[in-house]
């Protein structure tokens, strides 16, 4: 069922292509794997994958980075950006990233079902043993984090 792309690379490529096409930003691994986005600056959302594996993908970044991304995508000054635009960008980014991630991960004839993105509030949910984390940054060294959780998704890690 799994193509040659390892799980990690599938997500890395999905985030890279999405950010490059939508926001004209390059994405690379964060140089500091211990870095955490401060909770009071955090913007995040989540999306459920229902089939053929079950799990949840979360996208997190700082509100400052989200504002910068929104400005890039909409082509407007930061003073003109609204909270609704920032929320919409975050949801559209996650939606696109998860679609690409699944198409990178599975064979061409594999159908998959995903839910709709939902905005998160306050702190990110706790990380458990079945959570895989991608610590990334843009070419401006702005941090982005992606979390994939769920037992059936986590089993693909070593496939």
């Amino acid at each position: 069922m799994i193509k040659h792309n390892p799980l990690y690379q599938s997500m890395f490529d999905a985030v890279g292509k999405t950010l490059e096409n939508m926001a004209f930003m390059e994405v690379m691994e964060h140089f500091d794997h211990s870095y955490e986005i401060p909770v009071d600056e955090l913007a995040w959302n989540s999306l459920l994958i229902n089939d053929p594996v079950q799990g949840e993908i979360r996208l997190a970044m700082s509100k400052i980075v989200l504002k910068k991304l929104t400005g890039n995508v909409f082509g407007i000054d930061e003073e003109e950006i609204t909270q609704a635009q920032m929320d919409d960008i975050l949801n559209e980014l996650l939606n696109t990233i998860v679609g690409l991630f699944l198409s990178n991960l599975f064979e061409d004839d594999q159908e998959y079902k995903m839910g709709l993105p939902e905005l998160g509030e306050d702190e990110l949910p706790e990380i458990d043993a079945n959570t895989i984390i991608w610590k990334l940054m843009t070419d401006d060294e702005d941090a982005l984090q992606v979390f994939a959780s769920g037992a059936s998704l986590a089993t693909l890690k070593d496939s």
Partner: protein
Amino acid sequence: MKRIIIADDSTTARMFIKRCLQIIGLGDVEIIEAEHGKEALAAAKAQEVDLLLTDLNMPVMDGETLIKWVKASPKLGDLPVVVITSAGNPAKEAQLLELGAHRVLNKPVSPPIMMDALADFLDED
């Protein structure tokens, strides 16, 4: 002037598609934005439309249902439909083409991909 309906519940996606259309030389077409399939269908029935660009996952009426309604309508049956989705893969694409979609594009769509998909539409100008 040509009219294009963009059906997507995301403001960002609609704006991004509009920007792609501008880049490929379709900046002067009339764009009608719809947040879901039902709104797009009503807009298509209310006026002459040349092209429908639609997402799949939308509230109220999804893209698949929209295509079925469009293709079943005597008035709209010939309306070209291009699907732009994050939930596409070859199996899904085949299913959508069978329903009557002309092309299926995966997000994030880029101007060259949009240009290729709309080549026939552009040639008519």
